[in-house]
């Protein structure tokens, strides 16, 4: 499974994603896609928040990095829960910059974060498509019952 994963996702996800796949079964057949969709939804909200946080920090004299830290913690947590290792790592760097009140560093980190998130999203979509195709192909391979009119 892992070997199939790597060429598609090129290191942007780690073995925690495999753990999620293990949690999927007949009683919860769409578990992974459900969790991933929730992750996308939450992440996009967090990214919007982080963009605003960065604007506040850059435009105003008074710098409130605390909010940024909260959003980053949330993003870090959910990213590690689905195995989005690279996104998580950028969050860590981002947070370090915010703790040092480093505006330029925060902006750079935000840019990188958006890039990594975008990359991840594309890769996961690809993965799901491949998975869908595999399921369809498997269905075609199984012969029909003889008494099928």
């Amino acid at each position: 499974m892992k070997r199939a994963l790597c060429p598609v996702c090129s290191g942007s996800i780690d073995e925690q994603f495999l753990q999620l796949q293990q949690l999927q079964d007949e009683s919860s057949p769409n578990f992974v896609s459900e969790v991933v969709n929730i992750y996308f939804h939450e992440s996009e909200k967090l990214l919007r928040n982080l963009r605003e946080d960065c604007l506040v920090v850059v435009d105003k004299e008074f710098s409130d990095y605390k909010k940024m830290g909260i959003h980053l913690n949330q993003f870090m947590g959910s990213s590690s829960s689905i195995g989005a290792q690279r996104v998580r790592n950028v969050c860590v760097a981002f947070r370090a910059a915010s703790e040092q009140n480093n505006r330029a560093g925060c902006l750079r980190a935000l840019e990188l974060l958006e890039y990594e998130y975008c990359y991840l999203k594309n890769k996961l979509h690809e993965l799901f498509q491949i998975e869908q195709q595999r399921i369809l192909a498997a269905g075609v391979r199984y012969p029909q019952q003889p008494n099928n009119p």
Partner: protein
Amino acid sequence: MAINGVFSRFKMLDKNEGVNNLSPFTDSHEVHVLAVDDSLVDRKVIERLLKITSCKVTAVESGRRALQILGFDEEKTSVGFDGFKVDLIITDYFMPGMTGYELLKKIKGSSNFREIPVVIMSSENVLARIDRCLEEGAEDFIVKPVKLSDVRRLKSYMFGENRIHTQDREFNKRKIDVSLSPSSDEVMSNQSSPSISPRSFSSSPTSHSPTFLDSHIRRLKTSNHD
């Protein structure tokens, strides 16, 4: 959790009959876990992990909500909330509003609820944080991302065959440090090989009982190459 079960049984019962009896929680009473996490992603994942290990789960998004659902404020006159019984609370550390640590303090500071074991989860391995939580009475501290092996281990030593009472739990907590040894994850998935226990026993320092932190770090190290 073969190692855990075996070791604590050696200490507590001084018998080795427990070795082959490490089946999952077979009690008729289903373990009810209250999971607290502000992240919907994490709530989904922890819920699934707990359900797969045959626990009943209630997942809420904040400490406030958790206290509310436990009937915390109504403890003096609690009649209506008798039905909501919880065997374990598992909470994220970092949450807006009330943190997991604050929730832990509230629970442990209450005569009605302090018996409920509380486990803290955090996406960061900060020793000071772990220390603080354990001092305040947390049963365990899990570094996220939470894995199936973490949940199984937890369930096994807390609600395993020999149901542990509060005072014994204190005793068992000290045992955890030695029993949380390397390769616990592999053992978890195999759920066999009682022969592993001697190896794990010898691998842990015996001159003094190792602290929980040592074992926790060991567990982190092993989980890295999982």
